C-alpha cells in the first residue's frame, strides 16, 4: 500500500511541471461567503488573504509522532475534495519541517469557487490531507467614462475615454464610438484605441481621432470596453456626451512682395492655399497672413502678426513649411506666454491630442521653453517628418503625408485651446 502511495506521489511530482489550471468551470452555485471545515487533528488549512487575483494559503501541520517529508497545498475548482492528481492542481513546498506553511495561488477565474486543502507526505509515503477551505473572488466589471471633447474642429475631433476602474476581468479592447442619433454603439462608427497611458497624470486615458466628419453637426460619443468574464464576452458603454463640429478656421493670406518669377509664385501660392485648407478644416484659428518672397531668407520665417517670408530654396516653398510658419503666426515660439507651458507641455488638451494622433499614450509635447521656438512632434520642423520616412511613435508606427499635415493643424488648435496667446 505504501508503495502504491509512493508511486502515486512520484507520478504527481513528475506531473507538476505540466500543471496548469485546466479544471473545468464549476457550476456549483452558492454565496460568496468562504466556508471553513475544521478538522485539524494533523493538518489544518486556511485562506489567509485574498487580494485579487492572488490568494494566500496557510496550513498548520501537527507533526508530533510523525516524520513529514513534504508539505503543500492542493486545489480545484471542480472537485470539492481536491486531491493530488486528477483534475486538481497541487504545489509542493518546503522540506524543512516547519509547522506552518504558506504559499500564494494566482486565480484565473472569477465568480467561481476554489476548493483548497493542505497536505503532508510522511516518510512512509502516506499522504495526509487537511480539512477543506473554499473561496470565490467576485468579478469586478470595468468602469469607463466618456471625457469632454475639447479638441473639435470643422471636420474632425479628438475623442477620449478613460477607465475609472479596470476591474478584475480580462479586457479585450476599448475605444470610442459615435453617431448622430444618440447612444452610439459598435454598430455605428467606432475606432479602437491603441493603449492606455502609463504615466501618473494620464493613466487610464484612451482616445481616437475621428476624421471626415460633417461641419457644424452634432455627434453623440461614447467610450466602449469589451471584456471577458469566464470565457464570456460582453461590451459596456460609458456616458453619452454630445459635441458639435465647428465652422472651422478663418485663416486668409495675401501677397506682399512677389518673387517676379511665375513658377516660384505659383509654388508658394500652392503651398499657402494647401496650408490654409488644413488650418481652416483642422483648426478653429483666425489670422490674416501676408506672404512675401525674399531671396535673402535661407528657409522661411513668420512673425506673430503674420508677416511671412519664403526664401529662394524651392524645397521650402512647400505646404509643410507654410504650415510650420503659420504655427508661428498662431503663437508657437512667438506668443508672450510660450515658454510658460514647460517641457513637456503641461496642459491637457495638446498632450491628449498628440497622444491620440500618434496612437501612443506616452507621447508628450516638447519645445515650450525659453530659447526654443518650435514644438515637436507634429511641428513639421523638418520635411522628413511628413515625407520619407515620416514621424514614428515609440512603438514604431509611422505617420506620414497628409495625416501629418492634419496633425500639425490639430496640434496648433490644441495649443491655443490650452491657452497659448494669440496676436489678436
Amino acid at each position, binding site marked *: 500500500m505504501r508503495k502504491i502511495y509512493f508511486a502515486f506521489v512520484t507520478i504527481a511530482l513528475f506531473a507538476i511541471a505540466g500543471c496548469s489550471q485546466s479544471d473545468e468551470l464549476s457550476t456549483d*452555485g452558492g454565496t460568496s461567503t468562504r466556508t471553513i471545515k475544521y478538522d485539524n487533528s494533523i493538518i489544518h488549512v486556511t485562506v489567509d488573504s485574498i487580494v485579487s487575483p492572488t490568494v494566500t494559503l496557510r496550513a498548520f501541520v501537527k507533526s508530533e509522532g510523525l516524520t513529514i517529508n513534504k508539505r503543500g497545498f492542493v486545489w480545484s475548482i471542480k472537485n470539492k475534495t481536491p486531491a493530488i492528481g486528477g483534475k486538481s492542481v497541487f504545489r509542493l513546498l518546503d522540506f524543512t519541517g516547519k509547522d506552518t506553511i504558506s504559499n500564494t495561488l494566482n486565480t484565473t477565474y472569477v*465568480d467561481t469557487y476554489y476548493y483548497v486543502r493542505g497536505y503532508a507526505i510522511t516518510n512512509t509515503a502516506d499522504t495526509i490531507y487537511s480539512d477543506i477551505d473554499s473561496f470565490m473572488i*467576485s*468579478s469586478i*466589471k470595468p468602469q469607463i467614462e466618456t471625457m*469632454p*471633447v*475639447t479638441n*473639435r474642429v470643422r471636420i474632425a475631433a479628438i475623442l477620449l475615454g478613460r477607465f475609472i476602474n479596470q476591474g478584475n476581468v480580462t479586457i479585450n479592447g476599448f475605444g470610442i464610438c459615435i453617431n448622430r*442619433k*444618440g*447612444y452610439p*454603439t*459598435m*454598430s455605428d462608427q467606432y475606432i479602437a484605441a491603441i493603449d492606455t497611458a502609463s504615466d501618473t497624470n494620464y493613466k487610464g486615458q484612451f482616445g481616437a481621432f475621428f476624421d471626415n466628419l460633417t461641419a*457644424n*453637426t*452634432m455627434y453623440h460619443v461614447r467610450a*466602449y470596453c*469589451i471584456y471577458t468574464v469566464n470565457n*464570456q*464576452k*460582453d*461590451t*459596456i*458603454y460609458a*456616458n*453619452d*456626451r*454630445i*459635441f*458639435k463640429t*465647428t*465652422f472651422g*478656421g*478663418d485663416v486668409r493670406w495675401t501677397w506682399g512682395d512677389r518673387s517676379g518669377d511665375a513658377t516660384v509664385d505659383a509654388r508658394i501660392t500652392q503651398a499657402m492655399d494647401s496650408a490654409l485648407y488644413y488650418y481652416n478644416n483642422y483648426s*478653429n*484659428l*483666425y489670422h490674416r497672413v501676408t506672404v512675401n518672397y525674399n531671396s535673402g531668407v535661407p528657409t522661411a520665417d513668420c512673425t506673430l502678426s503674420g508677416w511671412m517670408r519664403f526664401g529662394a530654396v524651392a524645397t521650402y516653398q512647400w505646404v509643410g513649411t507654410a504650415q510650420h510658419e503659420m504655427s508661428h503666426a498662431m503663437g508657437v515660439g512667438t506668443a508672450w506666454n510660450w515658454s510658460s507651458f514647460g517641457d513637456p507641455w503641461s496642459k491637457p488638451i495638446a498632450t491628449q491630442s498628440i497622444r491620440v494622433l500618434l496612437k501612443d499614450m506616452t507621447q508628450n509635447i516638447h519645445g515650450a521653453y525659453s530659447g526654443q521656438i518650435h514644438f515637436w512632434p507634429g511641428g513639421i520642423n523638418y520635411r522628413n517628418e511628413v515625407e520619407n520616412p515620416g514621424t514614428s511613435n515609440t512603438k514604431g508606427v509611422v505617420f506620414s503625408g497628409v495625416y501629418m499635415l492634419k496633425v500639425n493643424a490639430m496640434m496648433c488648435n490644441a495649443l491655443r485651446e490650452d491657452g497659448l496667446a494669440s496676436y489678436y
Partner: protein
Amino acid sequence: MKKSLLYILIAITVLSLPVSVKAGTKSISSLNSSQLYPLWFPGTLNYIRVTGTTDRRTYSSEKITYGIDYVVLKYNYPRFNYVDSTELKSGCYLVQFVDNFNGLTAALWFGTDADSTMETPTAEKPYVLVGNTSSNPITPEGKFLKYSTTDYKFLATSGETVSAYEAYITTNVSNPVSQIVVSDGGITNGIRRIYGTDGTRLSICTSSGGVTIYSAAKTLLTIYSVNGQTAKTVELTEGPNTIRLPRGLYIADGKKFIVK
C-alpha cells in the same frame, strides 16, 4: 393680471443648480456640459440663446439650434430617450448641451402654455420624472431621486429640497434603488440584454427550470407570462441570480424567453 403675478413669482425663484428663473425664461450660468439639466418646462421650449465665446466664435445672446447645439431627453421608464424638437411641450425633461458650450451662459425661453399635470408612479411604471412647478423650493415627501451635479446621475434621497422648476424622479417603491444612471445601457455579444426596473443592465441566460440573470447592480425585474400577467417580480442582487420558473414562454423588459 394673473399671468403677470405668475411671472413675478417665477422671477424670484432661485435654483440650486446654477439656474435662475425669470418671467418666461430660465437662465443657466456657466454651463457644465458634463451634466444634464433636469427641468420642468413651464411652457413649450421656444428657443435657447447662449452668450460667450467658444471655438474662436463669440455668441451674443444668439439662438442655438436643437440637434446641433443641444438635445433634450425624456424619462420613459426605465430608459431616457432623446426626443424630437417638436415634442418640447410643458413637462419634465433633461436638457443636454454640447461640450462646445461648456462655461457659456444659456437662456431658455418658454411659451405660456404651462401644464403642471404630473405623471404618478404605477405598478408598471414605478419611477417617473416629475418637477417642482412652484417658484419656491419644495421638499418632496418620502424617498425620491435627485440629480447630482457632481455624480451626474439621480441619487436616492429624502428630506432634501428641490429647487424651483427642478425635475426629480419620484417613486411608489417603498425601498427605491439607490441611483438611476442616465443611459440606455449597452449591447452585448452572446448574452441577451434586458434592463431592470431602474434601467440597470441585466443579461439573461435561460436554463432548464428557470433563468440565470446577471445584474450590474441591485435592482428589480418583473417577469410576465406570455398573456401579459405578472409571473414574478424578483429582487436581483449584483452578480448572478438564479430564478426558478415553470416551463413556458415569458417576457421580461419586452424580450421573450423560453424556460424548458
